[in-house]
Structure formats: C-alpha cells, structure tokens
C-alpha cells in the first residue's frame, strides 16, 4: 500500500469507501510472527512461533490463558494483545462470579469485536494492532474465532495469522476436512506441522514454538517444552516435507490453488479490504 491523503485519521473515509488506518492496523498483524489454530469437535489447539530478538533475550509470550475454557493466541503488537487478554480475563471472571458458569466464547468474541470497533470510530483513538485467535469451549462445542483489528470476527475450523502464515494456511486447507474427528494428539501433530510450514525450512524445535490445548475435560493449558519436543521427535517431522504418518490429502487441488494465489502481506492496492 502507498501513502495517500486519506490515511492520516482513522475517522476519514477514502473515496473508495476504505478506512486506511484500519487496513494499516491489519498490516501490523501480518508483520507479527505466526500463530495458528485448529479444532476438532472436542478440542482446540493453538500454536505460535516464538522468535526471540537475540540469543540473549527471552521470547515474548503470545499465548494467554483467559479462563479454564478459553485461550487466545496473538499476532501483531503484543502489547495490544496483552491488554486485550486482560480485558478478556476480566470479562470471564466477572461472568463466572455472577452466574457461576463459564462465559460462552461466542459472547466474549462479540464483546471483543465491539471493543475493537470503537477504536475505528473515534478520532482520538487508534485501532488495536493485533489479531487474536480465540479458542474456547461452549455448550455448543469447540470453537475457534479470529478477531481482526477492524472489529470483525470470523469462526474457523483452522486458521493461521502473522508472517508466512499463508504456508500454514495452505497446509491446513489440505487437511481441514479431517480435523472434526481427529484425536487430540493428531490435532497437536497437525498444529506442529503447520507451524513448521511457516519456518520455511528452519528446524522445528520446542524452543522456538509454543503449543496450547483446550478440550472437553481438559482445561486450557500451555504444553511443557519437553512434551512438545517429544511430540516433534515422535512424529519425525523435523526437516521433512511430508511425514510418513501423514494422512492422505483430502483436497490436493484446492490446496494448490490457494498456494498459487495471494502470498500473504499483500501489496496490491486494488485488493478489497478485510480479506484474510
């Protein structure tokens, strides 16, 4: 995208009906390191790439537990993500206190989206520069949502955000039809493989990624580093293109089409906004 005279204020429309500041906020999400999420009928797995700035520093926390039944993975401005996680934790805890019942994910996600929308319609605010993958368990089953800086939210079977997420999305698109009935462990394996796709050949090790699970009878928790490393070793997916235990592709043709299209971090001006 190039600078233009309509992109200074979030409260200025462009003649084409676009809010450039909001779109720039979405760009911030695309610059952040990758986060992925996928779900079956009973479990949701969140994963993210944790790249430290230098060997001397620790890496940023990008997956947050919001409640026993809800967790979130973020990509973009992690500071904004932390603030929103605190808001979500607060909402969950208040609901739990009043109703002795877990807050339905669908409602939390709408509240989050409405909060983000406010920032797109006030001249003294700026949009949140973070995309959130919200994983949660409801009465109605397992859910995975994606919350945009624009204030939109979408429900997904599987999704990836952040830099080089298109590679992960391609992988997920090939496999998503099987996810509904996947076992918990297969789901984690698929998450790790999707993360590996975003590393573009770099070795997958548990020190550069984080995985979290929530499911029926399993409160949200982040997996221990050793556990993740064991799973990586067990599935022998380090540095391999397609592991020997991989399931047959359900829709290889669709996967190829998606790979040929948009490379993620689109630089086309004519592209319609809000497309992920």
């Amino acid at each position, binding site marked *: 995208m190039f600078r233009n005279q309509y992109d200074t204020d979030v409260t200025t429309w462009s003649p084409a009906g676009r809010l450039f500041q909001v779109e720039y906020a979405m760009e911030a999400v695309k610059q952040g390191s990758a986060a992925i999420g996928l779900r079956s009928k009973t479990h949701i797995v969140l994963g993210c790439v944790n790249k430290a700035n230098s060997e001397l520093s620790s890496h940023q926390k990008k997956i947050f537990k919001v409640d026993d039944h809800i967790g979130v993975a973020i990509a973009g401005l992690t500071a904004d993500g932390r603030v929103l996680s605190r808001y979500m934790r607060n909402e969950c805890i208040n609901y739990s206190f*009043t*109703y*002795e019942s877990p807050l339905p994910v*669908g*409602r939390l996600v709408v509240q989050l989206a409405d909060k983000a929308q406010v920032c797109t319609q006030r001249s003294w605010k700026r949009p949140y520069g973070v995309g959130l993958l919200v994983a949660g368990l409801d*009465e109605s089953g397992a859910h995975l949502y994606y919350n945009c800086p624009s204030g939109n939210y979408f429900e997904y079977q599987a999704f990836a955000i952040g830099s080089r997420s298109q590679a992960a999305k391609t992988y997920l698109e090939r496999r998503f039809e099987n996810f509904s009935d996947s076992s918990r462990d297969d789901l984690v394996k698929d998450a790790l493989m999707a993360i590996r796709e975003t590393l573009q050949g770099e070795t997958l090790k548990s020190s550069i990624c984080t995985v979290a699970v929530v499911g029926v009878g399993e409160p949200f928790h982040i997996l221990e580093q050793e556990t993740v490393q064991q799973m990586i070793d067990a599935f022998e997916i380090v540095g391999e293109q397609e592991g020997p235990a991989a399931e047959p592709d359900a829709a290889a043709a669709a996967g190829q089409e998606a790979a040929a299209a948009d490379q993620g971090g689109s630089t086309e001006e004519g592209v319609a906004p809000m497309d992920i």
Partner: protein
Amino acid sequence: MDFMASKQPENSLLGPEADSQRTLYPYVTGTSVVALKYKDGILMAADMGGSYGSTLRYKNVERMKAIGKHSLLGASGEISDFQEILRYLDDLILYDNMWDDGNSLGPKEVHNYLTRVMYNRRNKFNPLWNSLVLGGIKNGQKYLGTVSMIGVNFEDDHVATGFGNHLARPILRQEWHENLSFEDGVKLLEKCMRVLLYRDRSAINKLQIAKITEEGMTISQPYSLKTYWEFSAFENPTQGAVGSW
C-alpha cells in the same frame, strides 16, 4: 449535655432521614413455597395468598413465575419486592435472548444472579424482603436452589421457605426419593401443603402447583385441598388447657 452526632454522607441509607428510602419491614407478604426434584424436572407449590399483616387481604396472588425457557421462580415475603425481582429477571432474560446465539441462561445461572442481587441489597441495608426458590432443568440437568433475603443460597433435592422449612422439610426428608413420578411428587407436595394449611396462620386453602420439565413450564389452575377437622383432639381444644392468668 454535649454529644457529637455522627454525620452521614448525603446518599447513605443509614440514619433516621433515610428510613423512608429503604425497606424496614414487609407489608404484603406471601407465605411458604415448597419444591422438590422429581423424575422429569421440578415441582413447586405455593398458595395464592397475600397477607397484610394478620389480615388475609389478597387471595389471587401468583407467587410462582416462569423465567426464560428453563427456570421457575417461587417467592415468599414482600410481594412488591417479588414483582421488582421479576422486572430485573425480565431484563436479564431479554438481554440473554438478544444475543440470539444458541446460548441461554439456565437455572444455575439465574440462581447465582439472584444470589448476587439479594446479597448486594442486604449489604446496603436495603434488602428485597423475599425468600426465593429457583428450580429448573436444562440439558437433562435438574437444578433446585434457594436464596434468602440476606443472600444465603444453597441447592438441594427439596427446598422450602418460611414455615415450610419447619413443617414441610421433615416430611420431605422422610419421604422424598430420587425419580419420583409426577403423581407421587404432587401427592408429596400436597401432603406438605396440607400440614402448612392446618398449622400456618397465613396459609389459605387455594394453591397452585407448577412443574418445569425440558418441554417447558406448566402451572395448575388454583384448587383447594380437602381438610378434616373432626379429629377428636380438635374437639374442646381448651378442655385440658392450663390457664396463664
């Protein structure tokens, strides 16, 4: 004689001037509510009386109401406060329905919401002068709980308010069991209500029984219990009485 009067902030509910703004005593009251879990859900019974002190003033008061799709609320105590609670719950259910997302507040959630309301009012020295019974069933899970005017809440297989605690609960402890049929449940409730009718001065012989199941809530038409007053102990009741003056 010099004394320092304690100065209250303007909006406080303590001190003599504020007495007109908070509940000190109830005026029109309902008496016991009795409820139990049975095979398909919850059964609840309450009479239709609204007493004005010792006068049995109002005889057509419905003290049980459906809340949303899954719950049933019965109340004893101040009738106007019960109506206020119904208004709060109306708003609550309305906002819940407006989400239109397949989630709904079940009896457990409503019960806890009421507990918060009652306890918070009690903390402000301005209670809602009621004892509430909240029962319901959602996704096969039966729920029955009670909240008092000071915010004491708990769940059980059978609950009662007021005199019902003293007269009905002992009967229920003896005779309640899991998976009562509808007919047995009604018989058991009627047994309790009959005892209350004999012994509670504020009870009237016009009651309703409400049931809530997965299908919904139904409430019976008002009816009366058969009573028997020819027990020999009731004849010449003062015969053996020791005078007090």
